[in-house]
């Protein structure tokens, strides 16, 4: 027993000493590496910053595009950061540097590399550089069925690659990406819906016709995401279809999202469907969304129904009705003042006073 303990102590001491030494070595090596990198990057970094400040055709473009490989490696991370921060000619110059140094060609190759981390880095870079020739390959990554595999609680690396590809497609803004983006919401492990919705919004109004078609998808998640995108795009001509979903869709979540989208689309034809939803026996969440959307429409016809809704015993309905009246301008405020004048612990009066208080602070009165 004593011998075993002695051996164990020896082993523990050995490993502990090795761990302590390794920490010291890592620390020293890191310091050395940082100093060397800083020295190597100093001059190229100045050229890079001059390029970012100068614009296309500046002599710095040639200097950066032609700098030695080790100098470029030292400033490449800075160049990538700058790419996200500059606009206009400076951005185009930077993008040209990446192209002339062969970075774009390499990234396009890497996109088909097969190793998810390499592919993800390439997708990120091409998205930032705005290279639309990457769209087909990115669409393939988004549609990759392997992205639906999950290891226990951990999101699979292919699913993460899909997320990067979705973001890149959004940045590239090519409407041909609608179908793969929408299809990524199906399957066993759907892509994150808010990322997909954001990418769809970034595709712009040209994507609206394809999105309208996607509203027929059988999956509620797809319909919700597309409704979100259509609402934020302000897609003209979508009101009727969205109103139909608010009325008919079998999923309560889709109906709720449709109410919000109708409010964002903001046309007079949305008034009736929203009033119907607000006064229905649907869930409180849906009714509250409909009431909030009524405030966004700016229609005076909503004042009377909202005045009735502010007396609702349900906090969310009454609160949203008061907020909606506040957003309806002077006529809404007059109604709120009348309600606020009511004495005692009347719920409608309290909600009205709260809304008027906020209106006063924000200068809406």
């Amino acid at each position, binding site marked *: 027993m004593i011998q075993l303990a002695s051996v164990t102590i020896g082993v523990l001491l050995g490993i502990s000493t090795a761990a302590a030494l*390794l920490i010291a070595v890592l620390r020293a090596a890191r310091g050395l590496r940082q100093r060397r990198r800083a020295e190597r990057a100093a001059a190229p970094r100045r050229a890079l910053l001059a390029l970012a400040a100068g614009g296309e055709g500046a002599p710095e473009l040639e200097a950066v595009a032609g700098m030695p490989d080790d100098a470029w490696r030292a400033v490449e991370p800075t160049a990538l950061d700058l790419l996200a921060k500059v606009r206009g000619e400076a951005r185009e110059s930077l993008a040209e540097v990446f192209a002339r140094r062969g970075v774009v060609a390499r990234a396009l190759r890497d996109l088909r590399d097969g190793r998810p981390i390499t592919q993800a880095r390439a997708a990120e870079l091409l998205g930032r550089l705005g290279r639309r020739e990457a769209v087909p390959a990115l669409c393939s990554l988004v549609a990759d069925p392997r992205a639906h595999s999950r290891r226990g609680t951990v999101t699979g690396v292919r699913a993460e690659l899909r997320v990067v590809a979705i973001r890149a497609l959004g940045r590239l803004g090519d409407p041909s990406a609608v179908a793969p983006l929408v299809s990524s919401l199906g399957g066993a492990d759907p892509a994150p819906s808010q990322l997909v919705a954001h990418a769809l919004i970034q595709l712009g109004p040209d994507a609206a016709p394809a999105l309208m078609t996607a509203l027929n998808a059988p999956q509620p998640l797809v319909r919700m995401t597309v409704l979100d995108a259509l609402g934020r795009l302000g897609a003209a001509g979508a009101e009727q279809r969205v109103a139909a979903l608010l009325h008919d869709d079998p999923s309560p979540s889709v109906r709720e999202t449709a109410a919000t989208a109708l409010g964002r689309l903001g046309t007079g034809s949305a008034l009736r469907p929203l009033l119907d939803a607000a006064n229905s026996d649907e869930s409180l969440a849906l009714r509250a969304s409909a009431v909030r959307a009524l405030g966004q429409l700016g229609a005076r016809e909503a004042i009377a129904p909202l005045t009735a809704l502010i007396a609702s015993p349900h906090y969310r309905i009454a609160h949203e009705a008061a907020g909606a009246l506040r957003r309806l301008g002077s006529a809404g405020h007059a109604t709120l003042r009348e309600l606020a004048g009511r004495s005692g612990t009347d719920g409608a009066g309290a909600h009205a006073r709260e809304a008027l208080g906020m209106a006063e602070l924000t200068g809406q009165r």
Partner: protein
Amino acid sequence: MTSLAGVLHTLLRSADTAVLVYFFLINTSYLILVVLAATEFVRHRRRIPFDGAEEAYRNPLTPPASVLVPAYNEGPGVVAAVHAMLNLWYPTLEVVVVDDGSTDDTFERLRAEFDLVEVPRVLPTDVPVTGRVRSVHVPRSGTGALVVVRKDNGGKADALNAGINLARYPLITMVDADSILDPRALLSVAKPFADDPLRVVASGGVVRVANGCTILGGRVVEVRMPRRWLERIQVVEYLRSFLLGRTGWSRLGGLLIISGAFGLFRRDLLVEVGGMAEDCIGEDAELVVRLHRHLRAQRRDYRIVFVAEPVCWSEVPATARVLGRQRRRWHRGLTEILRKHRGMIGNPRYGRIGLLALPHFLLFEFLAPVVEILGLLIVPVALTVESVDLEFAWRFILVAYGYGTLVTLIALLLEESVFHRYNRPRDVVSALIAALLENLGYRQLTAVWRLQGAWAALRGHRPVWGVMTRQGFDSRSPVAHSQRSSGGRHRVR
């Protein structure tokens, strides 16, 4: 007589062996967690170049978040803390400060700094609140994202419940008023919600030690080791237990604790489970266990995750007296949670929470001080009655503590290779020495305090609330400690 002595010898030897085996098992379990954390860190590091933080910030669909800040007598630091939280890098957020009946100038300072005015507000009653809400205040401009609630003192859990009721947004983060968040911390803990919106229900951020760091404008601008060894040891302890331990548990899907200093939750679920429990001193951990219980019972597919970086910085006790009080409370909280949710322990209905995480907490967290103290008592007794000889005894102690030190050193190695927050070589040396010093008195003292905490919980003593150690963070100099008393129901944690 001889046979009695023989039985005693056998018992002592068996107890020695049992304690040794226990030490081996507990440290091996930590080692497994550290290894799991290491794999997670490697994964995390490889993904940084394409983590999409910029995109999340620009995405109008990133869910808005309400930052709840319960405050009790936080006068010296509250303004800097609120400024820092309002300046967090996040698309849409509101900061809800709940002044829980402070007796100092907490509210006056806020009113003066943010030009607060009282507004009428109808308060929803989604979760129960004990302390009466006296008034609600917002900046006179009406455009700010700040809401300050004044209420009667009811304790931290009650203050958080008031904040939950007032929070407008679907995600709620709870942050201690004396905590400092890295600018991107909120966006980072919100990322799991964006990446896996259908399953993630809560996420926790890592808490690091602010003592010794240089704070400017509510931000940690230089990370340094504290000056006192007591604080340095806690830095090492936090790295091992909080950073690596919780990352490991998160990897296993068994995360049981999200620190009250920094966690993010879905508001609808907080309402669904009835908010924070006021009958439990460890309300932060209790909430997570209750969420697991609720969601497992309903067979819902969900995840509770831990985010290792960026971080929340918090002060740790600088004196043994305050540390003792803290550890008594922590262990008391753990005991209460285990007692309250004992039906989950070993129950297959609760999956890896019931079969793995809770048994681990029972065996290796709750019982650890008992076994440690037992071990410390047995060795001298065994030596006295010559049940073991000195040769074996010192080896026994060295093996037991040596393995623990090795685990800590591996944790430090991971910190240095992945995060390397401490840049000065002398800080790294201090950490290495602290890893050794932890075994010389610190562990034993904390074991005694933890035992006292468990005993108080088992006997049902009323919790003792009290002294807060705070210093305003808005200073250029490294964090040092001042101490002041408070009589309200808030704790040092």
